[in-house]
């Protein structure tokens, strides 16, 4: 059990992992209390959704179909998220709001624009366009794979129980 070689290997692995971790969180050195983080996420995230609801209500007043209003409101938020990222304001908001600015769709737009901006100097094709999917890639991969697997599960379930699609 207490093999000294194994122990030292484990210890050095642990040290390496801690070092990597420390370098990853260098931006957030100061530990912020959970309650404050959660409250900020709630308020900022809620405010972005409220803004979306305001756009939605204004669009329904213009007499558009319900689904169109939802999509258009999301598009406005995507536009705002992209432009504010491009101007450098959204990342500042992200430092305060955490998940409150990441989880709304404007945060998804931010995750697309931010790495693209950063790699623009490497060229439009190999830099900007390639890095556009640094963060959006995983979301699309897991989103598509997850929905396909869940669809397949439903298909098999209905085939076994004799239900209709």
């Amino acid at each position, binding site marked *: 059990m207490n093999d000294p070689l194994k122990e030292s290997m484990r210890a050095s692995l642990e040290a390496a992992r801690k070092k990597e971790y420390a370098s990853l969180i260098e931006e957030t050195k100061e530990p912020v209390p959970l309650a404050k983080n959660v409250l900020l996420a709630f308020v900022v995230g809620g405010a972005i959704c409220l803004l979306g609801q305001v756009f939605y209500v204004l669009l329904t007043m213009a007499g558009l179909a319900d689904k169109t209003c939802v*999509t258009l409101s999301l598009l406005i938020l995507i536009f705002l998220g992209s432009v504010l990222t*491009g101007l450098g304001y959204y990342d500042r908001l992200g430092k305060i709001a955490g998940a409150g600015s*990441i*989880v709304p769709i404007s*945060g998804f*737009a931010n995750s697309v624009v931010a790495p693209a901006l950063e790699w623009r100097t490497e060229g439009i094709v190999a830099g900007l366009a390639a890095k*556009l999917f640094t963060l959006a890639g995983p979301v*699309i991969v897991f989103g598509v794979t997850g929905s396909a697997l869940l*669809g*397949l599960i439903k298909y098999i379930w209905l085939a076994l129980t004799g239900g209709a699609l």
Partner: protein
Amino acid sequence: MWLDFFWAFVIGGGLCALAQVAMDKTPFFVSSAHILVAVVLFGEVLGFFGLYHHLIRLAGMGAAVPLCGFGNSLIEGVFAAMGRDGLLGVLTGGLSAGAAGLDAVIIIGFFSAIFLKPKG
């Protein structure tokens, strides 16, 4: 209408707060990619059991704006396409349902990254 605003704020904020708790309570470092993936999958699972549209009916944009709404529209798209095309719908439904948002993110994101300069 005012109640709709209230629920949009509370449910939308609540989903973000939930994600923040998950972020802070996870023992290892959680990047924004991790949190976005988790939120999308969360929305897909709720959509799979037919629960997410209740949340949308209550909170409107409060449930549509957080990225779990994107996950839900993927899974609803898959189910709708399965109703039309059978098993092939598993592959055709997801991205076509999320196409408007996804295309907008790519196109607007592309031009924002080209033309804008961060200040400071």
